[in-house]
């Protein structure tokens, strides 16, 4: 059983969208609605990828990414930011926090699947040189 993809998203419809999309393409999905529960889940469930909404209630997605990247247990898990903030500065902030991808909402489902596949493949290749 491959490792799941962790979706951290507070908006129910968008969480459902991402879960359905990923499941339809054969990925296992686990979900969190806040940054803190997302971090806890990332530590306990060892996901292969995290899709992080940046504007979460309470702790922001950027802060959560920073915490994940500074934790040796989760630092290797790639994080893709999924945000409705579409400006260049948002992209730069996401990159600075440690995200390896930035997808703007509304998402293009086809492109997103490909992008996820690309990033996962990169990681697999690195795992098995």
């Amino acid at each position, binding site marked *: 059983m491959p490792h799941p993809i962790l979706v951290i998203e507070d*908006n129910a*419809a*968008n969480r459902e*969208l991402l879960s*359905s*999309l990923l499941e*339809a*393409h054969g990925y296992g999905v686990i979900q969190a609605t806040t940054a803190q529960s997302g971090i806890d889940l990332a530590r306990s469930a060892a996901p292969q990828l995290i899709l992080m909404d940046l*504007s979460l209630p309470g702790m922001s997605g950027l802060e959560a990414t920073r915490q994940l990247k500074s934790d040796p247990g989760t630092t290797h898990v790639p994080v893709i930011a999924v945000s*409705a*903030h*579409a*400006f*260049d500065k948002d*992209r*730069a902030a996401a*990159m600075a926090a440690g995200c*390896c991808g*930035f997808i*703007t*909402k*509304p*998402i*293009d*489902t*086809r*492109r997103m699947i*490909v*992008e996820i*596949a*690309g990033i996962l*493949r*990169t990681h697999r*290749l*690195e795992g098995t040189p």
Partner: protein
Amino acid sequence: MTVALRTYARCAATLVMAVGVTVLIGWLADLHVLRSLVPGGIEMKVNTALALLFGGAALVMLSGGTRWPVLLVIGKCLAAFIALIGAMSFSEWIIGIDLGIDQLLITEEPGAVYTSAPGRMPPNTALCLMCDGLALVLLDWRLKSGLRPAQVLCLIQLTIALLALLVYSYGVGAAYSQTGVTQMAMHTAIALLLLSTSILSLRPDDGLMALITSTTRGGMVARRVVPAAIILPLVIAFGCLKAIDAFAWPVGLAFAILEVSTVVILASLVGWCAHSLQRADEDRDRASERIRASSEEIAAANQRLHVLAEERRLAQEKVQELARDLAVSNAESANQAKSAFLANMSHELRTPLNAIIGFSQMLDDRLFGELNAKQAKHVNHIQVGGRHLLKLINEILDLSTIEAGKLEIETGPIDLHVVATEVHDTMHALAAEKRLALVFAVPSLRFVGDSGRIRQILLNLVANAIKFTPDGGRIEVSASAIQDERGRTIRLTVRDTGIGIRKEDLGRLFVEFGRLDDSYARTTEGSGLGLALTKRLAELLGGGISVLSDGLGAGATFTVDLPETPPSASSASSASSASSPGSPALGSKAAAAQTRRPLRGLVLVVEDETSTQEMLADALISNGFEVMIASDATEALAHVARRPPMAVILDIALAGGSSGWEVLENLHASAHTRNIPVVTLTANDDRALARNLGARDALLKPIDREHLLAVVETVIRRQQMNRTALLVDDDPMIVKYLSFALRERGWNVLSAASGDEAMNIARLQSPHIAIVDQTMVEPAGLALVERFARDPATAHMPVVVHVLHPLDADDLARLDPNRHAVVKKLESEALLEEVERLCDRCPADEAAPGMTSPIGLA
């Protein structure tokens, strides 16, 4: 005082006239008492009485205030007449002859007392009258020294008359006459005194009189001393004389007393005056002291005022500064509020759109099972609507950002041909749907500019042209450089054969939401923001947009002029040698044929549509390629396994359950097939996605035969070159991602984490291209680029710099637009495109001779 003196003068003159008239009556009526006024006294002569009458009259006339100037003339005549009488009478005395004037009017009886000749006035009287007459004539004559002769004459007359009067007073009149001189009558003396003082009083403000009448201390002393000095000695002398008579005082004693009294009186007067002057001085000193104190107070007050004024000025400046700050901060906060609103609006609209577009897309992709025809149509409607909304949001955001002055221009080296090709590729399918001929004639103009914004402008104009051109029409896109005295201007022209624009509508065309709301415009969809945004973008780049149309049905021509920032001089010379052998101009077959190299090799075509299969095969075969054809994924993978091709042309939309994506995934999953270049064919714009999955290039259907051949040749050539890229970055994460992406596209990758390491690798292994992180700590990315440029072994190597923030003009000037490119970080797709483009433009065989061959070159 002046008025009082003048009044005195008139009264005295009247009195003098009265005396004169009285004496004349006495002479005419032969009444002795009227002539002498004192019984038995000395009589006044007729001429004297007449002269006195005239003198009084002249004085009144000359005293001023008269309304008739003629009176002044008469007054002067009378005065002259008096002077004449006086002078003639005096002459008679001097010369001793009778001029016959003495008894001209009335004959005096002989034997009158004290008379030298009958009717003749005494010499002192004559002298006095002469003085008075002259004084009146010369009344207003003033010497340069300020002296008035009239006043001197009056004083002489006064002295003579006073002497005569004193003689009477002291009762020595008889003795006086015994000197042989006719006695002046007492009333004559009085009248003369009145006359002379009156004349003096007429001009009291000038000359000698000014001394007396002035308000200065000099005037004060004069007024005190003069009357006392005149009157008191007279009185004392009179007293002494009386004492000599009454008490038989010896004359010597009387004189001694007179002398002592005079001394005492004069000394007292002087003392009094000195005391007064001293008091005045003290008063003046006190006043000065008060003035000085006041001055000091005034100075102090001025000082305080000055300080207050300064404080007020400072306060005013402070207030102005605060007002300015407030205005600025108001504007800033308004701007911030607007920006925050825009960011929020964008976020809040994108969130629900995410669900709308995402779910409909998934339904459309049949991820949840097959849809019936109606459902498919409705899902499509939802998607189209969602995308339209998204476009609208993006345009509003762009417009607002421009309005807020926040849209940044990101300049970098541009090849206009490359930008135009991208636009062509994007719009090609849309134009084909309406069977429109989309013709691009854009030469390879190179300059420094914002390629993203220029692309946006062209996209908007072409989209607009497609929208308003009926099926079967034609759209031409061209560009040229115009040189004038201000420099070079890049002119982009988009011409269509569409519905055209009425003259009266031309002005409204670029106004936000200003769509021409007529039947013909109604039939097309659009936000009404596209052209407004295009205009703003052109203006943002320092240029402008204009439109020409000959009216409805005549088509339209949009022209965008953009001022060019020319590339630096050093790069201009190499521009010609670097003209791209790898990017043939669209719409220019000759150029494409010229640059094509004859290559033979096996190409796999994966396509399920027979007609497209045939077209592709024909194009490839006729150009020397060998072709294999597969209709689905399984067949394709089987072909590759049996005989690996040099390239694969892959249609993504394959029928029968499998998709092109699957083929792509599979090809890249195996190390044996990973390096086979794949060119995808898609009907919609999935090119970015295809590249992400490892496709070397992606073409849009319908396929342009020439373009296809050029692309296939390019990907094969690139693969055969066995190209090496040098990645210079101190961030291992970035190196990891980029290495992977480059390898996917067939690159060999070398990496270096420092400048020295990079220089060594570059010298020894001569990579085809270097990719440098501008944010690298040591050395800074641009410094390394310059090191590459200075070393002859690496000077020809193209370099792509990826940056976090756009470079400023100074940094851009350090780059050569022909060999260097700038790409934003995290935009790996753009980075890879630039890498390919630069590498095509600067092939390794162009490098300096004697250069080491790249390692691993077959």
